[in-house]
């Protein structure tokens, strides 16, 4: 469950933003989770709730977790591909990529030319798409 560490990062970053933007309450946070990292949405939602700091600004926050499909693009042959097209991977490869998505380059290959030199164009890991909140002056 290293999802807790990621969830905690999201909460910290949210509070930093709330602080710097002078929010008195955070109403909505949209978190995007890349398909590549294979984080289970419910596990992450659970983790986010657990680490939901006791900061009052987070008391009524609506949390939206969206999974972003992974898209790859090969630097050698320019082929674009999806996660499914990279084939089946063994449990160790999946676990490694779950921890550090860049390990895709150790375990996945371009289905067209076999190169490990591809770009993860989308759907890598955890990002915060938006943070909405209330400001005293608004």
């Amino acid at each position, binding site marked *: *469950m*290293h999802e*807790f*560490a*990621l969830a*905690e*990062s*999201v909460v*910290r*970053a*949210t509070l*930093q*933003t709330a602080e710097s933007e002078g929010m008195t309450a955070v109403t909505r946070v949209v978190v*995007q989770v890349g398909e590549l990292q294979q984080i289970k949405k419910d596990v992450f939602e659970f983790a986010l709730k657990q680490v939901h700091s006791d900061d009052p600004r987070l008391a009524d926050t609506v949390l939206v977790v969206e999974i972003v499909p992974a898209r790859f693009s090969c630097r050698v042959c320019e082929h674009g591909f999806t996660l499914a097209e990279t084939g089946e991977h063994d449990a*160790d490869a999946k*676990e*490694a990529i779950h*921890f*550090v*998505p*860049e*390990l895709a*380059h*150790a*375990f996945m290959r371009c289905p067209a030319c076999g190169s*490990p*030199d591809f*770009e*993860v164009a989308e759907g*890598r*890991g*955890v*990002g*915060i*798409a938006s*943070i909405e909140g209330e400001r005293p002056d608004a």
Partner: protein
Amino acid sequence: MLDPRRAAVDARLEGVKRIVAVTGGKGGIGKSFVSSALALASARAGRATGLLDLDFTSPSDHVILGFETGFPTEEFGIDPADHHGIRCMSIAHFAGDAPVPMRGDDVTNALLELLAITRWKELDLLVIDMPPGIGDAALDAMRLLGRAEYVVVAGSSRVVLESVRRTVRLLQDVRVPILGIVENMRRKEDDGVRRLAEAQGLPVLGTVDFDETLEDALGDLDRLAATTAVRSLAAALLPVVFPAGR
């Protein structure tokens, strides 16, 4: 898109009293040996010690210290496995012996991810085996590990000296604190490293001779700790990292 990991890095290192980053010029100069030996000596001196291998291309600390590279346990993050008192983290834990060809952005991402999820907890010393070169990995490590103090490994070959000189200039340019220079693998009396250190206004913290017995001791902590190489390195660095009474 806001990257939440940056917010976590400092928090993950909160319990670490001191961060010593071991760098040098080119590869093969002994950065991994110095990092591993310092971590070993620190642990044997009773200090809570961590070791982070940031060479994603050729991780070596697991070979030198002989730690297992299976997946670390997950516990509200990942928990660096304890190896006889040294808490170790390396890309080899995840990649095994597969090559990990990564471009600059990938390196930045992998580094951020590792720093954001690894829970070092309370440490007296975290040793960073710095990535070779002065590209994304090294620049990001310098940027993200703001509290690190640097030890520069040097050797007396002209090829090595030229590259160490470049590295020192870069460290000075980016204004990170440099503890000093360690001369490694000395084969004969030579004042190249001392002169470089003087020219840059840095202390030579110690000299480690080339040690014929080191290779056979790799992976065996008791034998390693008894080598002349590890003992001279410990004598050079422990007093700097843990000044008397601290």
